[in-house]
């Protein structure tokens, strides 16, 4: 199978994720879109690893997963705290710093 197809898929997933981050209001959905972007990037890394025939890209994919896991922990904690205090998970409502 042509490796380029994986890259097209990766680009498609990344675009979906990016549009989701920009368009959606719900923090959980935004969060999931971010995960989607990260995984799109992971897919690119693994693909390039396969194309180049070495393990560097796969190693970086693991790093990305670890970072993503940490990010989920911190991010979910923030979202839950915001929801508790404001009874809303909309990212547009969390604009206190501007005022």
């Amino acid at each position, binding site marked *: 199978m042509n490796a380029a197809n994986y890259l097209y898929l990766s680009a498609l997933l990344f675009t979906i994720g990016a549009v989701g*981050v*920009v368009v959606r*209001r719900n923090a959980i959905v*935004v969060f999931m879109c971010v995960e989607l972007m990260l995984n799109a990037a992971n897919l690119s890394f693994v693909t390039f690893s396969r194309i180049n025939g070495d393990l560097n890209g796969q190693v970086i994919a693991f790093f990305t997963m670890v970072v993503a896991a940490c990010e989920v922990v911190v991010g979910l904690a923030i979202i839950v705290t915001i929801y508790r205090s404001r009874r809303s998970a909309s990212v*547009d409502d969390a*604009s206190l710093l501007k*005022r």
Partner: protein
Amino acid sequence: MMTSNSLVYLIALPLAGAVILLLSGRRSDKWGHLLATALSASSFFVGLYQLSLMLDRTNEERPITQKLFEWISVGTFKIDAGLLLDQLSICFVLLITGVGTLIHIYSISYMSHDPDRRRFFAFLNLFIASMLLLVLGDSYLNLYVGWEGVGLASYLLIGFWNQKPAYATASKKAFVMNRIGDMGLSFAIMIAFATMGTVSFTGVKAAAEQTSTAALTGIGIMLLVAATGKSAQFPLQAWLGDAMAGPTPVSALIHAATMVTAGVYLITRSNFIFDAAPTAQLLVVIVGAITLMFGALIGTAKDDIKKALAASTMSQIGYMILGAGLGPVGYAFAIMHLLTHGFFKAGMFLGAGSVMHGMNDEVNMRKYGALRKFMPITFITFGLGYLAILGVPPFAGFYSKDMIIETAFNAGGIKGIILGTVTLLGAGITAFYMTRVMILTFTGTSRWDEEAHPHESPWLMWLPMAILAVGSVTSGYLLSSGDALVNWLSPLFEDHGEHEELLSPIIVSTLALTMVAIGIAFAFIKYSLNEVDEVAPSDVSIFTKIARQDLMQDRFNEAVFMRPGQVLTEVLVKTDEVVIDGAVRGVGRAALGSGASLRGIQSGFVRSYAMLILIGAVALVAAIWVVVQ
């Protein structure tokens, strides 16, 4: 040179008086004036004691010094605060403390109704101490300290009644104009230090021979600037008339007898510089000649008795400066005129104060008249001073002023004839305006205000006047008999041998007396035979109008220095506001403005931030892609 430990008392005594009176406050109101007078008198007696010691020594041993302390010590450059008492300074010491003490005594009575009499006496003592430091300093730098001190005392005393804004302005004017002269003195000291490496009198005198004429001329001109400021000489003369705002004893002591003669002292003390710098010496003579006519002309038009006397002081100091500018032959005569002038002018100022005392502080001579009968002692003492300033034999001015006229004539060539003529004319005009003062004040019919009750002053006031009148009569003869003063001072000045005589003394005296007689006659015809107007007539010639305005000196200063100065200041202030402040504020405004416009993007919406990040990332990738391609 011999040293002594007692010189410092001359200065320390009056200085202690000033300190005690100023620090003790109202507690010393009752006895402060007595203490100040006693300290001034004791300083006079120390001076007399020093004179008696000096008389016992030979010419070479007469100067004595006292080192007070090491003042500045930087590497090889050392300046000691030291005092020098020689034949020249002892003359000044006795004049300052002697006349000073008499004026202290006079002031006890004159200022008795003033609530601030203690402060007045403190300032008087401060003045005496500063003036003594000026004449006793053994280097230009020490002299400079005294020079500034008398400037301060003069400022404080002119503005003594500073509750009147005009008087406060007058004191400020005197101070500011004196600063110009002080600047000249500091420049002279700097040039002397740069070229000779020393500022002491002995050091400069020794180094003067090896110094270039250009440097000496520079020092001389700067010293002359200093002298014109302190001695109210052309072109820095405008402050003296306004300085009459001070109490009359101050005018007598500071602005007639002592401080204003500091310029003559400076030039005489720096004789070794001026003798080696003919250009500077010529300028001294020119300044003296201009001022003596300038002052005399102003004197003819003044109705204020103190301002008329001030103009006369200016003119008489012009004589002294002229004499000092004539070189070794003239120094001694300048000093002699200075001493006699100290007596008769101080006496006349005290007389004017006495008249004002009896006339409710009226100074307009057109409101006087016929005071001879009511103030006989004032009339006699003032009259003796009047005869002295005119140069009528055998009064003091005859000896001193005729000597200057004679020396001026004998200066040689065209210079001698011009100077001689100017001094003769000056003598004539002096006779005119002084006779005018006498006639308007003491003779004729009374033109007093209704509430005026003229009366003779108390003895505390007329006693100093009487003593000064005795000095006005005898000092000239005493100082010139057997060339006493000339011989006394001769070791200080290098004599360049005999001088040609253009006119013999007899002819000069005859000419001078003729001029004086003409001046008196004019004044007599104008003011004694004709009615005197109570209000100064306004339909007068243009010359009188100009003379009444002090020969336009203030207008000239305002037009040439003040207005351009104000314009310059305004331009500088505008430049400061627009350019410098503008740049500073511009930086702030640029930061604020860019911040304000950038703040618009900070919407607070997380999604728009994410959008911007995305756009940025895409733009970055695109840019890299373009570059790599």
